């Protein structure tokens, strides 16, 4: 088929779709995914209501109230995202990429630090974490880059180029320092290459390089006295393997308290009042990084497995979207979002139970924090949009 004709076809379809926008999107919405997201958000709010009840003396719902505002804003972002044609992101991937890199870089100029890391920009009423929004923007932009080279995806040059491009935000985030989020970016990028059809040998090579890097940075480097990571980062990444040999007392303490908190929840949970690990602050960061441990302590195996089930439902439906997507761009965007989400969930939940390295990654839809909640809901909006348009185009064909 001639490329030109294709273009005309595309133009026509776009015209038609714009007329269909509201009704068409609503007709072909992934209601199961939407219900899953709603369930996740509800469980997340429930978790926050318990986890933060004693965080602010005299105001048990301080964090819950704020979190509900974020959910409202994020819900709006989801709705807006659902109705925006993802093709627009593809067309404007360069400005999106540029703006993202600028915003992340901007953190170094005006950002404010918390817990040893500069990730936030204060807007007065809200501290804004560009790297959280950056996850979505990163996927949208780099997918655009790949979509521009649809035919060359799989070529070594393309892969090298997209890696080079992606390295800019990844390194910026890594320098904040926010190793966890940088890894999420990388996971999303690899996922896009994977879904986009990069040959296995490239993926295997990438994986081998990553493995070599990890071994070099974490074990070989320190063994010969070269430290790429800060001490605490190093111990956080390696301590979970042998908690009792952990060199950092803080990390070891966090890990042990987290495991105790999860385990103490038993089947039914200890309830908000009796969850002493949380209530008496033995568990650090129990509203953010270690929210899963705190939630598990309060709600037990029943509550924790309910949350995991909802995650699985959402991820499952989201993964399906990759094969339903209307076009290549949408497909790899969906793949990137799904894997980024999966990666965050695994690393966060896994670290609270001692089977994944400790990183500062928030738990999607649950951790207290506006940037994460809004960005994740917006990403869900993009997924819903991809699904709806994919469905609509199938129906037409």
């Amino acid at each position, binding site marked *: *088929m001639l*490329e030109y004709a*294709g*273009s005309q*076809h*595309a*133009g026509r*379809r*776009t015209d038609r779709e714009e007329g269909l926008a509201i009704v068409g999107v609503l007709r072909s919405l992934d209601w199961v995914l939407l219900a899953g997201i709603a369930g996740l958000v509800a469980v997340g709010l429930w978790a926050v209501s318990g986890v933060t009840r004693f965080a602010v003396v005299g105001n048990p719902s301080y964090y819950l109230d704020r979190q509900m505002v974020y959910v409202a804003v994020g819900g709006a972002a989801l709705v807006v995202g659902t109705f925006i044609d993802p*093709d627009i992101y593809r*067309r404007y991937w360069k400005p999106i990429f540029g703006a993202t890199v600028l915003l992340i870089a901007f953190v170094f100029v005006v950002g404010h630090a918390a817990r040893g890391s500069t990730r936030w920009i204060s807007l007065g009423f809200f501290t804004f974490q560009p790297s959280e929004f950056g996850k979505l923007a990163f996927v949208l932009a780099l997918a655009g880059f790949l*979509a*521009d080279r*649809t035919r060359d995806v799989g070529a070594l040059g393309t892969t090298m180029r997209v890696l080079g491009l992606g390295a800019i935000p990844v390194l910026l985030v890594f320098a904040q320092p926010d190793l966890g989020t940088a890894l999420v970016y990388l996971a999303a990028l690899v*996922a896009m290459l*994977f*879904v*986009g*059809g990069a040959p296995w040998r490239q993926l295997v090579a990438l994986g081998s390089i990553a493995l070599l890097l990890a071994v070099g940075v974490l074990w070989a480097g320190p063994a010969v006295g070269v430290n790429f990571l800060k001490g605490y980062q190093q111990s956080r990444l390696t301590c979970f393997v042998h908690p009792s040999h952990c060199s950092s007392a803080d990390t070891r303490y966090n890990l042990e*308290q987290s*495991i105790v*908190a*999860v*385990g*103490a*929840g*038993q*089947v039914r949970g*200890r309830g908000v009042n009796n969850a*002493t*690990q949380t209530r*008496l*602050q*033995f568990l650090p960061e129990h509203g953010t990084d270690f929210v899963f441990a705190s939630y*598990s302590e309060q709600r037990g*195996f029943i509550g*924790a*497995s309910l949350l*995991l089930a909802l*995650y*699985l439902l959402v991820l*499952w439906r989201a*993964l399906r979207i*990759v*094969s339903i*997507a*209307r*076009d*290549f*761009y949408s*497909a790899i965007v969906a*793949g990137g979002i799904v*894997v980024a989400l*999966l990666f965050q969930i*695994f690393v966060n*939940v*896994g670290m609270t*139970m001692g*089977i994944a390295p400790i990183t500062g990654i928030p738990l999607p839809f649950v951790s207290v924090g506006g940037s994460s909640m809004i960005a994740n809901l917006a990403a869900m909006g993009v997924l819903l949009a991809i699904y709806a348009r994919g469905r609509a185009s199938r129906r037409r*064909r």
Partner: protein
Amino acid sequence: MPPSKGVAEPYRPSARVLRRVSVLGVAMLVIFAVLLLRLWALQVLSGTKYVNQAAANSFRTVRVQAPRGQILDRNGVPLVTNAPATSILLWPADLPKVYTTRYAELRALSRLTSVPLYEIAAGIRARRAGNDLVTPVTVREAAGEPMIAYLYENAAQFPGVTTWRTFIRHYPYHSLAAQVLGYVGEISPAELAGLAKQGYQPGDEIGQSGVESSYDSYLRGVAGSARMHIDAFGRPRSGLTTTTIAKPGNDVRLTIDLKLQQAAEKALQYGIHLAQANGKWAARGGAIVALDPNDGSILAMASAPTYDPSVYAGHVTLGELARAGLTPKTAPAKNIPSLNRAVSGLYPPGSTFKPVTALAAMQEHLLSPYAYLPCTGTYSSPQDRSHRTFHNWDPNVNQAMDLPTALAYSCDTYFYRVGNEFYNLPSDRGQPIQKLADAFGFGQSTGVDIGPEATGLVPTIGWRQQHFTSAVDKLWKPGDSIELAVGQGDLLVTPLQMARLYAALANGGKLVTPHVLDDVESPNGARVPVAAIPAPRQVGIDPAALQAVQKGLWDATHLSFGTSYAVFGKFPVSIAGKTGTAQKVVSLPGYLGLQNQSWWCGYGPYNSPKLVVCALIENGGYGGDAAAPAAAKVFAAYFHVAFHILGPIHSD
């Protein structure tokens, strides 16, 4: 609109992409399976373990001291009880984190409680050093009402300061029997090292002396426990919930009789005043022991000077202790009030020891009770190469006396002669005085149940050999036997040992174990089994010899030439007893010299003895002057009779 390349081609996911989606799906399932399994392992399989760990994290168990048992007299009158008190506690973890505000708070607290700031700071440092943020520092035990009220009203200014209801020792009779009862104090690290196995823990109160110490195991009860929530920073987050109720201590009933004890203490003061009235300026202390000669139970035990143990109850300050003469620095000036002279004071017994010499001489057939020996003004031993002259207390006497008369008149030269007889004994017949003194319990602990007890000294030939270095001193000389015969020289005894001797003289030669414990009663009144007091044991005295000595003791109080006739001659109850005037080298602040220790020991009624009294007035002069009237006061109180002294006596 620019051509959009991505949409340009009708997109159908290739089989390859679909395959990859399924790979991702499988990976996803595996990841979730791993998470769920781990969750299940932690929460379902080992949940109990982690619940326990979480509990250990957040609960701290605090010891709740048991109310200490009371100490009662033989009629059940409480001598030591507990009084409710409020202590002020400080939780170091709750103090302000900013140095200046913390300092300001501690300063204010120090002023309010009048506890020096350095003491509070030392308490906090001790907790910090032990890494113990959950045990509060007791700033002040027994805080006054105004302090407590001020703290309540200004609680906001004193974060980390709380009050706590406790009990402190209460002494309704103040200084009464202070050295017998003893006091309690916080266990010292040294004590703890030896007692940790018996359940003592840091911060426990423990009896420091007297009955409080001897019967601490009965009195202390069993500490309970309470627990409270603490947070990750060790700050208490809840009140105390009792988990084990403290078991109050048992009451200890003593053989001490409150009325007689009071009388004995008054009598002791009376004796000291008499001595001082006689110009005995150094008479500032003494002891009186009153015991039942049949079983050794002590009815009264007085020691002067004394102190009020309340200084150890509640808030103890060094200043108060110093004023009471209870610190090493101030004790000598106050003549060591904490010393229980009845059991730990060592004195030569003087003539009160003569019955032992007499009994030993009769047993060795050196003396026949009714044969006469000369009583002269002076005596020197023909065997003594130094030709030392020993003087009688009365230089103007020259008459032959039998044993009872010699005892009654307390003839020294009579006993010097007997003593010389002992010196002349062939060595295969041993040292009979020392042997008998040993049998009467001298030179050893009496086994009394309050300590620490001094054992005293019975000088022997072997002791001289060991104790001295020069050849002359190592040698046992006639003078040693002569002085021993009259209870002088190196012989040292405690008033309690003397009381025990006179109990044996009174009860027909049975040596009793003196004791203050009657029984132990649990808070609900049930008797608690205690180790039995050893039964009196026969010393093995010839009854005829004993009878002669008893007659001598009776004569001493009833015949006109008897040394305490003036006191006991017209006493309504028949009392027998012996005076003693023992020379002792005394070292007082600013004085070193010989002082007469005033003794009187005896018993009554003569025919069926019920009470032995032994009185000692330190540096009190003649036994008849100070000790005998003091002892008579005790008998008067015991038999509920009045007496009057017949006239001045200046006798041995």
